[in-house]
């Protein structure tokens, strides 16, 4: 694996205009582009090309984007970013829970897409588990279960710590409410328990000295989940 630079990206989208846009701009960002226009071919291409990342349109004619996602996930853990239309929160959540790594809503800005691609590729590239996560003045020591903010120890309850750990070790990636519930509470959770998440996220933000109107670390993705923000580079 050669990191973000020069990574091989497969685009599965039926709209030639979107494919052209992605091809021109992503090649300018030094990515190697492969493209195809329908789902069935996309599944085949994914096994031939061996891409480092797949950009998949959920609204494909014929074999649906969701089906393509499931087929690929049967044998590959390649990062997949799905493209969706706005106001289809249900589709986004379904795709994320079915194994998509992130989503971008159409229409999207190029900066946003490239940032998502970088995050997704970075998570794959990371081979060794770092014992200490650093985000600006925030340090999370996974071995010691200790959180420090601006040099001072932050006291967290076990649940708060687990939540922060899940979010921070997936920094930059979206975590759906269901994924978060599952990873923090294990099997003992209910879909309707999602309001507890809000309470704990509220506590966590307070302890991390977050400005409630402009959070630095934990960003809410309305209706979908949370994203731990990477510090601006």
């Amino acid at each position: 694996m050669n990191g973000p630079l020069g990574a091989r990206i497969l685009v599965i989208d039926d709209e030639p205009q979107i494919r052209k846009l992605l091809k021109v701009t992503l090649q300018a960002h030094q990515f190697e582009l492969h493209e195809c226009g329908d789902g069935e071919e996309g599944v085949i291409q994914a096994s031939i090309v061996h891409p480092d990342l797949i950009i998949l349109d959920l609204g494909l004619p014929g074999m649906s984007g969701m089906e393509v996602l499931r087929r690929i996930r049967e044998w590959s853990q390649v990062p997949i970013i799905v493209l969706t239309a706005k106001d289809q929160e249900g589709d986004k959540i379904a795709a994320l829970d079915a194994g998509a790594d992130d989503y971008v809503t159409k229409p999207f800005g190029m900066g946003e897409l490239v940032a998502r691609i970088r995050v997704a590729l970075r998570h794959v590239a990371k081979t060794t588990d770092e014992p200490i996560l650093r985000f600006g003045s925030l340090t999370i020591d996974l071995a010691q279960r200790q959180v420090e903010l601006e040099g001072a120890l932050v006291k967290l309850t076990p649940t708060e710590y687990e939540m922060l750990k899940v979010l921070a070790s997936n920094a930059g990636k979206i975590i759906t409410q269901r994924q978060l519930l599952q990873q923090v509470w294990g099997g003992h959770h209910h879909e309707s328990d999602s309001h507890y998440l809000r309470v704990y996220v509220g506590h966590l933000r307070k302890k991390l000295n977050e400005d409630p109107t402009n959070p630095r670390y934990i960003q809410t993705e309305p209706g979908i989940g949370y994203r731990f923000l990477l510090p601006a580079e």
Partner: protein
Amino acid sequence: MILSERIKKETQASHRKRVSAYVWVTLGVILLTLLLHAIGMSGDLVNVALVYLFPVLVSAVYWGMGPAIYAASFSVIMFDFFFVPPYLSFTVEDLRYLISFVVYLAVAILTASLAGRLRQQLEMVKAREATTNSLYALSRQMTAITDLNTLLVNIATQVSLTLGKPAAVYLPDGQGDLLVTSSPASTSEGEKDGWGDGESEIAIAKWVYHHGQIAGKGSSTLRESPGLYVPLRTEEQIHGVLAVSMNAGEVHEQQEQIRLLEACGGLAAGAIARVKLAEEARLAQITAESERIRTALLDSVSHELRTPLTAIIGSATGLLENDTLFTSEDRRELTGNIRDGALRMNRLVTNLLGMVRLESGMLQLNRKWCDVGDIISVVLTQVREFSPHRNIQVELPDEPAFIYGDEVLMEQVLVNIVSNAIKYSPDESLIVITVTSDKSSSQLTIRVADQGIGIPEAERIRIFDKFYRSESTQHVTGTGLGLAICKGIVEVHGGTIVAEANPGGGTRMRINIPMEAHGSRFPYSEQGEVED
């Protein structure tokens, strides 16, 4: 009680009464004779004759002409037999007494006929009153109904109850056929239910409908048919036909019922005309409203789409065709122009789609407990991108405020409201977002106050109408959809949204949202964890 049954019973009763009247008269006159004899008034013939007028008057008033004449005749016989010499004989000694008898009979008959007529009039008035009462009841019931089908069922039922016979109403269906609304099965006589939907009945009803004349039993046309059909007519047109199934009865009774049916028909026609007019007026209003909205939609959409499209196409073609002419600065400007135009079109499309989803009822609320502070932070992240020159302050309550709503839609509402505050206020001005919760009424209030141009009081309600743009803001681009969508979303959450004057100048939007769901507040329970 059903009127015709009452009439029938009354006739039967009057038969019995008449027979007993003659018995009573006979008995009374005999008793009177005995009494007069006992007190020995046989000498005073004039008084005796006067006393004999009593039974005549009484029977005239109570039983009518027949018994009165009978009483007069019987009295004369008794008078002659017992009081006129020679006593206990029908022969008359003095022939002048015959004149007395004639005069007596004449007086008796005259009095009896007068009293009898009085009685008849009384009965007629009573019958009229009963008819009037039932018609009044009918009309009162009909004026309360606004739905045509309910009205037709009601007319058929009421007419059937009033006349004691199955009834049916026929109304044209727009294709030249008549639709039947039958009265429910008549309870009193156990008739087959749904009278009136047979082919022959519909054929007669059609004839009546087209000719506007009464037909059927008891009328001059088609008198051999078992039903009676009257047209439902108002001044200008015939609305339909009212029919009842008649059974064989007296001609006199039929005339009475035709009158009653015609009166019912008049009422029904009035009621049907009223409901139809109301319906037409409503349709006309809807048509006018949708016409207005269509025009506004076309104007707004064509303008709002064309302007950014012009900018995009112009900039893009310019860049493509004259690539060498432009400096890199120019090129940046033109591509920025393209981006802005596209973003503007995106907002329009989002709003149009939102409006369509709201209007078509396709909007499904995905309600969950959501933290209002959290929503506001998401909103601010969004608006900051296009409003670097505003000072936005947020005042949140100490405890997190939760509402049971659709996070994404509430975010859309607040993005619209805050964007408006930014759009209609000057650079570097202050925008204050305040969230307060009222524990007693379980209402959460979000206020967004700006220091912009403000909204004239007269327009504060209309700005929430679709495609309404304030006169004073015509120079600012917009579709007039944003606030209409906000209002729709807030209302499906059971809340309200109003525009107020900001005390320091500008506009203040106030949104009230209930904080309860299913009668309970946010289940805010700590799990009693301790920090490590």
